[in-house]
């Protein structure tokens, strides 16, 4: 009896490039030439927005946080919304670099560098908000358990303190992971450059890495360890961010679904931002053969899945509110969907649940304009998700006498726009001075990179 076996072909990850030298040339090209006009134009725009944000922060420091729209029931508003928004975006990088690595998703190699860089910049943006939110940022070091003249230690039972530890650990570990991934590429740049200043800079940064096999062995082990410890880390960080809400007694916050719900949301929002940045980067720097349509399609599939998870969480929240038979909880959700902030709630549902449904169709999954629009919508939707969670729960909790509305001021908007400016400015600088795609990893997933027959090709 003969058996006919059909195998699924793995899609090619590197298109049309046969030799490794071309990879180096393509990736290093943007680092060698004077930036284009469009880069300068974008940089001017983002740096101006960043400056605007810092001016608003300066004014906040001068006058106090009374210049914001925060009021008595709504003590957390744009500031914490932006914090959770940026932290969430920061999760996609580690997801791509660690979780997809553990799952042996080899397509991650083309996108992990940019995604990790984005993570670091997003966490930097996120870090600004709790600092300015404390009101007197020059005393922000009180967040750390330092011996002080009052002899009182920080309260380790508070989720806000867990956040301090989680976010700073996350930033440090992401930075180490990212830098470690950069070392072999910096060595490649060092060995090819003819510019003496760059030679010195790359020599220092690459630490004398010589790509020896004995070092690669340690390097790959360490990389795996970093992936293995970053995976629970990334899940824990957003879980802890959700504890800021879930451990309180505010209706709409006090739910056990929050940790997985927040993690799914973080993956969702982060992937949308990675997609947005990469579609533009690959176009501008002609990386179409490295970041192929297969990559983008895979990311759209992740986006669709995460979008459905988030949609499921929205539905379960409503169900639980009804099933708990708790009047306050039920009111909080009715108020979200039909109260004064209903427009924000339905914007969120439209952007996060409806818009990714387009990705059921291959035609839309592989269409650049559709991807861009959906990614932008999801980014907006995920910002509104945090706004809805924070503001609608706070503005009407238990006693109607303490209900109030929240209206942001121009400084709230200014600081948020400034953080967008900071993020994109850092990203624009990154793609100019460091390789946006990991050369050493791409070379390892090319056809024929590993000796066939001599060892098991993976």
């Amino acid at each position, binding site marked *: 009896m003969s058996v006919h076996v059909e195998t699924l072909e793995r899609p090619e990850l590197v298109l049309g490039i046969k030799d490794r030298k071309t990879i180096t040339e393509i990736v290093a090209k943007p680092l060698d030439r004077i930036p284009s006009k469009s880069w300068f134009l974008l940089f001017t725009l983002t740096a101006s927005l960043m400056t605007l944000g810092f001016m608003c922060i300066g004014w906040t420091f001068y006058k106090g946080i009374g210049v914001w729209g925060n009021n008595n029931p709504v003590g957390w508003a744009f500031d914490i919304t932006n914090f959770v928004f940026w932290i969430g975006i920061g999760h996609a990088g580690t997801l791509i670099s660690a979780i997809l690595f553990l799952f042996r998703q080899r397509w991650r190699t083309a996108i992990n560098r940019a995604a990790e860089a984005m993570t670091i910049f997003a966490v930097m943006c996120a870090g600004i908000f709790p600092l300015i939110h404390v009101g007197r940022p020059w005393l922000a070091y009180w967040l750390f358990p330092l011996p002080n003249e009052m002899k009182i230690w920080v309260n380790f*039972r508070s989720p806000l303190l867990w956040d301090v530890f989680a976010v700073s650990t996350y930033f440090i570990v992401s930075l180490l992971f990212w830098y470690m991934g950069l070392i*072999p590429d910096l060595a490649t740049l060092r060995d090819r450059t003819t510019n003496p200043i760059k030679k010195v800079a790359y020599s220092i940064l690459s630490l004398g890495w*010589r790509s020896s096999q004995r070092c690669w062995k340690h*390097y790959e082990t360490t990389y795996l360890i970093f992936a293995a410890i970053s995976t629970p880390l990334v899940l*824990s960080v957003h879980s802890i961010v959700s504890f800021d809400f879930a451990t309180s007694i505010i209706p709409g916050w006090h739910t056990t679904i929050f940790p997985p719900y927040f993690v799914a949301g973080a993956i969702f929002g982060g992937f949308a931002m990675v997609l947005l940045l990469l579609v533009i980067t690959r176009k501008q720097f002609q990386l179409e053969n490295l970041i192929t349509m297969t990559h983008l399609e895979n990311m759209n599939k992740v986006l669709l899945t995460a979008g459905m998870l988030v949609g499921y969480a929205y539905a379960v929240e409503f169900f639980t509110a009804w099933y708990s038979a708790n009047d306050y909880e039920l009111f909080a959700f009715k108020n979200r969907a039909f109260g004064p902030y209903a427009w924000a709630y339905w914007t969120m549902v439209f952007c996060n649940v409806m818009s990714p449904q387009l990705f059921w169709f291959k035609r839309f999954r592989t269409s650049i304009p559709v991807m861009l629009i959906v990614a932008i919508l999801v980014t907006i939707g995920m910002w509104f998700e945090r706004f809805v969670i924070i503001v609608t729960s706070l503005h009407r909790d238990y006693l109607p006498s303490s209900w109030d509305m929240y209206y942001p001021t121009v400084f709230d908007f200014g600081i948020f726009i400034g953080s967008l400016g900071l993020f994109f400015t850092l990203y624009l600088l990154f793609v100019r001075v460091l390789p946006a795609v990991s050369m050493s990893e791409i070379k390892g997933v090319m056809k024929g990179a590993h000796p066939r027959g001599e060892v098991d090709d993976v």
Partner: protein
Amino acid sequence: MTFKKGLAANFISPQELVRAARQVHKSGIKKFDVFTPYPIHGLDEAMDVKSSHIPWFSLIFGLLGAGAGLYFQWWTSVADWKLNIGGKPHFSLPAFIPVTFELGILFSAFASFIALFYFCKLPKYESIFEKDTHALKATDDQFMIFVESSDPEFNENHLRDVFNKHQAEHIRWVGDSSHD
């Protein structure tokens, strides 16, 4: 491994590189290394490179970090300055888990990173390869085998035969020598 002087050869094909590396290893040479722009799977077996000990550092320091984190929370909340916060127990173990966990991860990450530097002897301030134009290709598109001449099993003619058999290019001496 720090190299001073020896014979080097460049390779284009990963197949030939792995075969040549296996031959060099089989001839009993210990002081040699292979330089590749990306880690090649199977090369470590061909060269008989042992597994890295770095995971032990990650584990031990991870546990140490978690232990230190938990101890510190106990010490500040129970030993040094007791405060009644919301009637919660002084030693609130469930609430202490997040910080314990994060510190475990943090210590583990630092330990792994520093261990990588230690085992790879980074940062390296100088190398005999930095002036050799063919050696520089080993971070770009070619592969290179280098055999230190002070190895007791070093035999130039034999090595040249091995390299030539596997289509090596630019077989040359690298390092401080009057050789070509």
